[in-house]
């Protein structure tokens, strides 16, 4: 997996941030934007380029919910689990999503659809809300969510 071409891609992605004060966060975003995740075997490459220790880089990656160490699923469904969405039936919607997809929130699986928690998308006046493959959707209910999930892959959601 760890081949020199991936390392080259990583080095190229973070080139612009090497001289940037406190540039590790944008550097990690740049890697994740190119590769979809931050491969563990590339952490030493990142550390060397940013002149930081492997432990420091690993510490930052593991602190933030957004940084992923595994390749992403084909589709990502982020459902808001915070209070304003709870007040509009968010908990029911969360349970429905887990049951439809056959996966639990924030658990690694081989499913084509990853289900992730998000705590607020700023759509609290049109709750409940979600982000499906980067697209925002609001005023969700079970029916609409089912339609959206069905659209992700036509042959039913659960292949995990």
């Amino acid at each position, binding site marked *: 997996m760890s081949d020199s071409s991936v390392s080259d891609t990583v080095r190229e992605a973070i080139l612009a941030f090497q001289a940037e004060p406190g540039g590790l966060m944008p550097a990690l975003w740049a890697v994740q934007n190119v590769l979809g995740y931050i491969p563990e075997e590339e952490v030493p490459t990142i550390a060397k380029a940013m002149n930081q220790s492997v432990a420091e880089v690993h510490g930052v990656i593991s602190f933030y919910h957004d940084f992923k160490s595994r390749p992403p699923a084909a589709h990502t469904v982020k459902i808001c689990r915070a209070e304003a969405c709870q007040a509009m039936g968010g908990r029911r919607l969360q349970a429905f999503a887990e049951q439809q997809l056959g996966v639990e929130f924030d658990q690694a699986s081989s499913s084509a659809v990853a289900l992730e928690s998000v705590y607020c998308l*700023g759509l*609290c006046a049109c709750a409940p809300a979600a982000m499906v493959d980067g697209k925002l959707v*609001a005023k969700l209910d079970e029916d609409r969510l089912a339609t959206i999930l069905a659209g992700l892959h036509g042959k039913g959601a659960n292949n995990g």
Partner: protein
Amino acid sequence: MVEAIRFYIPGDAAAVALGADELAAELNSQLAQRGLHSEVVRNGTRGMIWLEPLLEVDWGQGRHAYGPVDSAALAEILEHCLDNGPPPTVYLGETEALPWLRAQQRLTFARTGLIDPLSLKDYLAHEGFIGLQKATAMEPQAIVESVVESGLRGRGGAAFPTGIKWQTVLDASAGQAGKYIVCNADEGDSGTFADRILMEGDPFSLIEGMAIAGLAVGADTGYIYLRSEYPHAAQTLKRAIGLAREAGYLGDSVAGSGKTFDLKLRIGAGAYICGEETSLLDSLEGKRGMIRAKPPLPAIEGLFGQPTVVNNVITLASVPVILAKGAEYYKNFGTGRSRGTIPVQLAGNVLRGGLLELAFGMSIRELLDTFAGGTASGRPARAMQIGGPLGAYLPPTQWDTPLDYEALAERGAMLGHGGVVVFDDSVDMAEQAEFAMQFCAVESCGKCTPCRIGSVRGVETLQKIRRDENRAENLLLLNELCETMRDASLCAMGGLTPFPVTSAIQHFPEDFGVEDNNA
């Protein structure tokens, strides 16, 4: 003549989540079919989220509103505004005459929803950059005094006097490494979206406010730390910063002042704790977002150890109007020590949710009656959480409290960032209390024990209470745990998490299997 008609469909994330992009595409296609080349402006939202997507049409007699609009209603709307057809059911009349807008005092959000967010021409035509131009002719001390005099307090939640903070940074010596202006745009509280709406609807006002702050304290670099959950705001800010730089409002000589100030946009990575200012600074430095002990204050030793102003989006975006119209003008809104205006965000189970800007002092009940119009579900409202996930739950008996920092604090509550989340009578307050602890467990930075361990123990204890396992003893234990977290945590995350928990137990004891906790 009809070519001169202008259409407005918000590009705001909430409007987009409700279909605004599809609506705009359909409108353009129907206009093309009619052979028209009318302009379709993607403005910010007016704040009336329950009406989104809101379509506005200006046929030369002011802007007229239709909402909420889906593509199917477009043909009828175009017949009404182009062919003198009958008004469709979604026609609302003149936008400015709508009661929700008329009842507000919009200072910080004066332009939001009106203008094209990325048009410098629009911004200038709506009194943009007047504050900055005035600031370029003022001594730094005079700028700071204007902000002190205005009574502006931090709108992020802590309500610290902004001018005092600026004075500290102005007085601090920085050496060669300089000073920084940091905008906290990590708006993580559920029920709040004022920062998002402003950044998407009027980004130049934030840029202007930051440039004024830079001139005031002698900082040449600013950072906007924006949460990753706001990709639309990121796009808009990025483009707005570029446009402002091209036009000379950022860069080597800000608005011709001969002084340097430039801005960088940084994106967070999904950590609620980075909304706390010291944690945010560590994140900006490329580290884990861990809390720093205070002192030293960020104003003395902030970003990269240098004197730093850290202010919320709304705080900074309120500065231009203070400079443009004077401290006295701003100060005359509001009451007591809560001066000026506060953007209130009505969210959760409300019939009419959205953003409104008001002078401080209106009662919560008035707010609900005038603006929210009851619950979305039609069931009675039972609880309200003000100020985000760390805010107290208030029962209807406390809804006569005015929106005012001190008045809410007296009742063990806080205004925070102005988010109001309404729950109807189907809510289980014990479940909400457990969630408060759970959220703290998920989002704690882990630096201090009361927060890191306390939140986990809090979840466990609440689960036992809910299962009726030694309920009385566990309630006592939970109470002690809450005291420890409140008094011994390093920051507001652990320190305020007990507020939603204890307020839920105090005001809704029946949900915890307690007869009457107030007896």
